[in-house]
């Protein structure tokens, strides 16, 4: 178990300034919780670009191949069906289903990857640092060791206060 020190801001611009200050002081920010996506936060925390776009691409590629390949296999190899003398390998008429499956696989692969990478899902038990973090508070969370000395904690708290935090709490 470790302890968390949280500092809150009530405006996203103060938050961004505060983060710069906190980082300059050499503190390691564990997490920043905001009620809505704050622009510029990715950069301030150096969060890399998400790779979920690649999952979407590969999901779509699998869907397209499967959708087109399956229809082609059914109508040319498994059970060729003469429908009004039309060609068995009818590429244009395989397009709609292939397209729909591309979208379906791409969307689902990406969303499933999103939940897995964030460890979100039904029954997930998150640590709620401040119930107003989803309302109007912008939270900076700093993790400290369970047995950290008092001085270390008060040192961090001072650094956070210097960075313009409007309130600081320590949670075991």
């Amino acid at each position, binding site marked *: 178990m470790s302890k968390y020190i949280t500092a809150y801001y009530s405006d996203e611009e103060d938050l961004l300034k505060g983060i710069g200050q906190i980082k300059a002081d050499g503190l390691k920010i564990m997490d920043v919780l905001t009620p809505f996506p704050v622009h510029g936060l990715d950069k301030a925390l150096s969060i890399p670009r998400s790779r979920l776009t690649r999952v979407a691409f590969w999901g779509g590629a699998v869907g397209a191949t499967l959708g087109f390949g399956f229809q082609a296999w059914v109508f040319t190899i498994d059970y060729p069906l003469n429908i009004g003398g039309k060609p068995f390998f009818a590429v244009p008429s395989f397009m709609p289903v292939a397209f729909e499956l591309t979208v379906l696989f791409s969307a689902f692969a990406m969303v499933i990857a999103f939940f897995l990478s964030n460890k979100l899902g039904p029954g997930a038990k998150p640590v*709620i640092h401040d119930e107003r973090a989803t309302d109007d508070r912008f939270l900076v969370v700093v993790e400290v060791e369970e047995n950290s000395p008092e001085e270390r904690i008060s040192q961090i708290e001072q650094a956070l206060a210097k960075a313009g935090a409007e309130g600081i709490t320590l949670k075991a």
Partner: protein
Amino acid sequence: MYTSPLREPLIRGNKNYKQVTDDILSPMAGKPSKYWYLGIILAGIAALFGGWATFRTVFYGIGEWGLNKTIGWGWGITNFVWWVGIGHAGTFISAILLLFRQKWRTSINRSAEAMTLIAVMCAGFFPLIHMGRLLLGFYIFPYPNTRALWVNFNSPLLWDVFAISTYFAVSLVFWYVGLIPDIGTVRDRAKTKIRKAIYGFLSFGWTGSAKHWSRHETISLILAGLAAPLVLSVHTIVSFDFATSVIPGWHTTIFPPYFVSGAIFSGFAMVLTLMIVTRKALNLEEYITINHIESMNKIIILTGSIVGIAYLTEFFIAWYSGVEFETYAFFNRAFGPYAWAYWIMMTCNVITPQLFWFRKLRRNVMFTFVISIFVNIGMWFERFVIVVTSLHRDFLPSSWTMYKPTLVEVGLYVGTLGLFFTLFLLFIRVFPVIAVAEVKGVLKSSGENQKLTGHE
């Protein structure tokens, strides 16, 4: 960031983040108003009527409907296309307007998407029940079976199966992913233990971590990019049901774009109908402002005009083609026994929405409400006209006939309306009707207080 001083704010009143949360979530707390009860009772009665009609159809078969040998598609398909079309506005607002960076979508996208999901459910009901043998409904999916048969991948009806089910699944995921942060907000404000547990479960453990938000932004954009062509494909494929046949009046290449714009047209009309009532009933007039209504009215004029041009083009081509059967089909539509339906369609879809060229009328809430109902009616008649008038004059004059719906068919339609409003009324009690986090995201750049101080 430069913001035009002429552009009016998207959110009225001097709101801060807390007030936004309070305003939007307050309708979920406490007891529902008596109007809500009245609404759900009326909708419930309509749904029961539909339940009775469903029972008759399943128990006695399709013979309960007014269809005959010549007119094999009637109200069932009309309602199916009408409901799918209505669904299109939700995806248009949440996906296409997101890609176009239209900030005004944030106030209406959540409920429009919910409307999409409910409308697609109502739509899906009609083909299912039209099969007659509901228990064999799974035959429409390709699965390995002892008959060693697959489905016919050359049939637009099968494309519909894939299009509608993909559309429903992707819309559901898109809606829910957007909803998760707001469910987190509801969970954190919940007073009772039960509410906390339920919303805690539904929130999937959302905390608003910066990394999660970053990924959330990415997938929202990609999902919008996927949903945009998807929504265009769905009504395109629905139009193929008609366009790939050889019935005069159906066999036209203009159908896909004409159906898609008609779908967005009718969908926006339904969004307006719902939003005008919702904003009043839930006191959300500061979020869904007159500017939002005006923006939607502009889309109504645009899509309504496209639909109007399509009607005229069809008529022109029918004459210009020199094909006498084609010419007859269209002449019969406008002046034959179903002319009344045709002229209702023309009036409601082409003529009345043009009044929105006047700014005063576009910004009049009552007037907009009336026109939105007109468009809903007009677009229903459009599908009725396409389906029935094209069929009722068969290739052999001896099979020419007329079609009248039975009470059971009326019951099925009224029943889906009941289901639609029941589910929508439940939705506004259970989930935030406006995307709270998204509104907060645009508050600084488009809120009223920021405009006054000239902040950024």
